């Protein structure tokens, strides 16, 4: 499809999964109205979850999942060498995601608990950027397909993409949602990066911050608000630690 006198490039793309639920990958095949067109602008050379083609000739690598085992590190370094652009897809890849929750546990003990006499190899969960440089991070648990579509369109034209700087509250309001705080629950919306279109508050669930912090979040006021409303440290921590995007906050 020609535009402005230019034929845009077809992106040679590969999708790799590390430790995660593969829900973000699944989003690539969701939003059925447009998925056929979405796949047409891409040349998918590697995408194990849905394709048996296993090519190595890709420019863009989408990485889903966190790193939690030695072999994943080797694989990741290999991919980084090949990829012109390495994209971390979803909260697990961007922050470690829910996998990070295990990092505070004694992994040996946990291993014995779960696997008894056959413990498995495992490392503390890490985000992709903790292992190799990442060019683009697309947070979300799962990622928002609309946003991904836009990002892909920007990649095709090689033009910069700007994530929203505003917090979730802004989009929450634009959906006429009644504030979760008003309903007596905790919500990380005021400090979490928007762009998800606030599905959680709209569905009656306080935001757990899967997209990580908004630009310039006002933590001190957020804690004041939470304290005034009687939320205890455990509850706050459970929210803040859930997706790993607020490491060190709290």
């Amino acid at each position, binding site marked *: *499809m020609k535009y402005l006198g230019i034929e845009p490039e077809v992106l040679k793309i590969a999708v790799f999964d590390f430790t995660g639920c593969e829900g973000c990958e699944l989003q690539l095949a969701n939003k059925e109205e*447009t998925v056929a067109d979405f796949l047409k602008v891409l040349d998918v050379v590697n995408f194990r979850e849905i394709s048996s083609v296993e090519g190595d000739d890709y420019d863009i690598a989408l990485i889903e999942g966190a790193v939690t085992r030695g072999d994943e590190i080797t694989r990741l370094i290999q991919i980084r060498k090949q990829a012109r652009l390495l994209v971390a897809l979803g909260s697990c890849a961007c922050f470690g995601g829910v996998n990070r929750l295990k990092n505070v546990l004694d992994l040996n003990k946990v291993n014995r608990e779960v696997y008894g006499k056959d413990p498995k190899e495992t490392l503390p969960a890490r985000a992709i950027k903790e292992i190799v440089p990442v060019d683009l991070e697309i947070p979300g648990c799962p990622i928002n397909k609309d946003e991904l579509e836009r990002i892909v369109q920007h990649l095709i034209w090689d033009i910069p993409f700007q994530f929203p*700087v505003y917090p979730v509250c802004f989009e929450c*309001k634009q959906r006429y949602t*009644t504030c979760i705080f008003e309903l007596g629950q905790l919500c990380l*919306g*005021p400090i979490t990066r928007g762009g998800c279109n606030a599905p959680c508050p709209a569905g009656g669930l306080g935001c757990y911050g899967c997209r990580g912090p908004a*630009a310039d979040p006002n933590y001190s*006021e*957020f804690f004041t608000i939470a304290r005034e409303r009687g939320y205890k440290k455990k509850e706050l921590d459970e929210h803040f630690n859930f997706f790993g995007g607020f490491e060190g906050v709290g």
Partner: protein
Amino acid sequence: MLFKTLSKPEFRNLVDLLLGSTEVIAPKQIGVNNDGKPLHHYLPVQEFEEIDLEYEITEYSAKSYFLPFRENLSSCRFEDDDWTQEIHYRLQPRVLMGLHSCDINALLKLDKVLAGDRFPSPYFISRRRNTFIIGIDHYPCEGGFCQSVGADVVTHGFDLYLTDLGDRYFVAINSDHGYNVLMQVDAKDTTGQDNKDYLEARQRIASKFEPLNMHNLPNLMDIEFESEVWKRWGKKCLSCGSCTMVCPTCYCYGVDERVSMDGREGAKVKQLYSCNLLDFAAVAGGHNFRADRETRLKYRYYHQHRGFMETYEEPLCVGCNRCGRVCLAGINPPEIIRDLQTEDQV
């Protein structure tokens, strides 16, 4: 202005007539908050029973029926490396009922900006002219200060305006549309008793207001431009924009464009934005003209209570205090204005 009275059953007939012929938006209870207080929104209704005219205040103002949070300004069709632009305006009529005076006054203020003589906005005008407005009187709502900004009464900006007189409504008619619609039911001419009851009802309402000192506010804002007041309140702001979303007069926006995944269609989308958001005044190259929360918060108040005043001789604010109610950080106009008034007085 013409006045009539309408018995409650006749009023119901009127609403039923409207419900039968057009879309009707009215205050509707959507639930209760944690303290058991009812929550209301302006929402499309299908039946008379859904309407709750006794509401205190809606969470969101009625502006989004004129300035939707998101609106397609134009669409584009791409073909053979060329495009054609298409523009559509909303043309269907609808009824918006149960508006309080603040919301109607807010529309009048928006008219000044959006329907005035400098680049009148067809998107707005089209929605405005296609909306039949029925207002209603009510007792002051908690925290509201509409009287102090002169927004507690309305003399125009509506088609019909109701005042509840117990068994009947006192109806002010402000348009031929309003008149024609009212004539579909059995509206009575007003009697001396009606007028007396009406004036008494208004008096009762007026007596319930607690005034807020707005004296000399525009100049005060200039004088207190560097004031600690802004630092104190600014520190609290979450830069979330909730206040501007619920505000009946905030109209700032951003425009961005998108292309459909098949590359065949594009849309120029207007999204209401907020001057409290971090990148409101940021420009390419990384410079941000209002990088601090404090300056952004101050700007919002400045625009409402000084800038608009300068241009139109009235504040942009209608005193509904929705922004104060929605703000998690508790930032609210009455307190800020009070602080500004007292800051340099010992």
